[in-house]
Structure formats: C-alpha cells, structure tokens
C-alpha cells in the first residue's frame, strides 16, 4: 500500500508498522513534556532556578517548565547540587516515587564526583550514580543554564531515538564521554593529584604545616 512506502523504516525488523509509528508519536510527546521535580540542594539549584524560573533562559521552550512539587506528578529529576549521606535515602525515595518512565539529569561536578568536596569530606557523596541511575550528566560548577538546556536536549534525543512503548525508559546506560586518545583514567587521576599538590590546594594539616593549609585555600 502507498502508506507503507511513505512510512519511516522500522528500527528493528520484527516490530510492525503500526507500532513503530506509535512509538514515534509517544516518544515525541514524552520528550516534549518532561515535568521536572522541584529538587535542589545547593548552589547548582540556584543556577537551575535561573534556567527554569527566570525569563531570560526560558525552559518552557523545551516543554519542561511545569515544575511539580510532588514526585508523583513528575518524570524528570534534575539533581542540582551536593548530595550528602543523609540526603541520599531521601533522594532515592523521591526517585522511586516518581511516575515511570522517569529520567534523571545530574548537574554539577558534585553529582558527578563530589566536586570541590571530594577530599576531607566526611559526608559528601562522591557522585550520585550509586544512588539513582543517571541518564545525563551535565558538568560544571555550576553549569550555566545553557549547559543544562544542552543536557535536556540530549535527554530528549535519547528518548526520541531509543525508547519504545514496550521498553519505556530504556536507554544505553550509562552515558560516558570518550577519553582523549592514548590516555587512561589512571593517568588523568595521577596528573590531577600532582597538580593539586603543587598548588598546595590540598595538604594534610596533620602532616604538613596547617597554616600552609589555610593559605593554600
């Protein structure tokens, strides 16, 4: 039939024509009506409020401006800010209360690795991916609203391209950036440690001179 010829080619061979089209429509609707949850824990939250609330960076262009105050009505969790040990169970519970399919965008270096609190912190989690499965990480300290929007657009792309009705929320996980060629993670870590020590940003006050420690700050 003519209609079959104009239809988009199905993604995998055993899904039929009608289902693929519905998938497209549903994913399109889903990606353009992400409802974020009101959730923010520290400085990144201020930047997120700039993105969601302020007029200059209008998040409603992407259909994500309906910020809900209850997880039961939200499907996008923007984890903006430092997560500490006591906050982690709360974050997990909020995530579990959200309606499926649910998505998580983590903004800021705190949610990626603990950010500025990675050393000498007794309570800051070093990254939140142990607590909730993250779809998109947005680096920065804090990321600018543009970066957050790029994160939302990336998520929209993931939803449009990879989701089906049969497998909502299914994505290739986790999303990791590529490393530069000829370099391993350990080498990067070593280099970072050397730099930090050189600039005396981190020194053990027990071992070194603690006035030096203060001055380095």
């Amino acid at each position, binding site marked *: 039939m003519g209609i079959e010829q104009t239809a988009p080619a199905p993604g995998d061979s055993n899904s039929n024509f009608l289902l693929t089209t519905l998938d497209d429509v549903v994913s399109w609707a889903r990606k353009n009506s992400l409802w974020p949850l009101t959730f923010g824990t520290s400085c990144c939250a201020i930047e997120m409020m700039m993105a969601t609330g302020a007029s200059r960076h209008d998040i409603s262009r992407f259909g994500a401006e309906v910020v809900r105050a209850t997880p039961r009505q939200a499907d996008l969790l923007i984890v903006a800010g430092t997560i500490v*040990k*006591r906050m982690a169970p709360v974050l997990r519970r909020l995530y579990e209360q959200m309606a499926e399919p649910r998505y998580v965008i983590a903004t800021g270096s705190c949610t990626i690795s603990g950010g500025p609190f*990675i*050393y*000498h*912190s*007794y*309570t800051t989690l*070093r990254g939140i991916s142990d607590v909730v499965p993250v779809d998109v990480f947005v680096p920065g300290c804090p990321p600018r609203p543009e970066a957050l929007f790029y994160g939302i657009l990336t998520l929209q792309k993931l939803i449009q391209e990879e989701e089906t009705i049969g497998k909502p929320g299914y994505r290739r996980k986790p999303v990791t950036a590529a490393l530069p060629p000829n370099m391993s993670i350990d080498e990067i870590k070593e280099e970072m*440690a050397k730099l*930090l*020590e050189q600039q005396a940003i*981190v*020194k*053990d*006050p*027990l*071992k070194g001179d*603690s006035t030096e420690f203060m001055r380095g700050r």
Partner: protein
Amino acid sequence: MEKAALLETITALIPNAKVIEEGVDRPAIELPPAHLPEAAKLLHDTDDFAFDMLCAHTAIDRIDDGKFELIYQLYSTKFHHYLMLSVKVDREHPVVPSVSSVWRIAQWHEREVYDLFGVLYDNHPDLRRLFLEDDWQGHPLRKDYRDDFMLTME
C-alpha cells in the same frame, strides 16, 4: 555603647575578661571557661549591656595549640551593639559550662558544636547529636578526624 566605652565597662565588671585586639573589628573579650556562666548572666542582665540575643555560637579547632576556641556572638536588640566572647578549652578535656540557661537558643547551638567538635557542655538539658546519625563515631570537624569514607591526599 561605643566600642571603647563598652570594653571598659565590661572589664571593670568582669575582672577576668581579657580584651582581644588582634584580628577583630568588633569588641571582643576572652574569658576563662570557669567564669563563663556568671559573665554570661552579667552581660545578659546588666541594663547597660542588655545582650539579649546570642546570634551564633561556634568553635574553632586550634590543633596546634591543643585548644578549642569557642566563639559566642552577642547582640543587644536594645542598644544595637555587638560583643564577641571567646573561650578557650583544652582539646583533651573539652568541658565548658552551658549558657543555655541564659540564652535558650544556646541549646541548639551547643548541640551542634557537640555534634561536630565533641565539646561537652555542663548543665545542658539535652546534649544529643543534632545533624549526624545518633550512632556516628567521632566528631568530624576536628582537624584530626578520619574515617573510612573520607578521601585524603596522603
């Protein structure tokens, strides 16, 4: 009261008070821990001072001197003047009298300092941890605090 006049009146009333001059821009005095309760009562009740508000209470770990420095920021809503009280206690036996009978808000401030620094307050009605879990071991804002979770650059 002006800064100079205030300090003069205080040192006249509380002979043990030592005026701190270095590194402060507000009137500041140092007290031995044993004299804290009576001095607090005087500062609160004397009509000339009327320090009726405790804005903040916190601690500094002076590990090199083996001391905790306890800071009390006082304010008078009547005269609008400030005073900083500093009390130094031994790091090994950090016991000080509580000022919660003078300023009730001190109950919470003192619980916080107890939680994070392990300073013990005599006569505190309910000295429990404020922020951390009840079964937490140690006091994490001490400079020599370490635990398995913490990352350090050794």
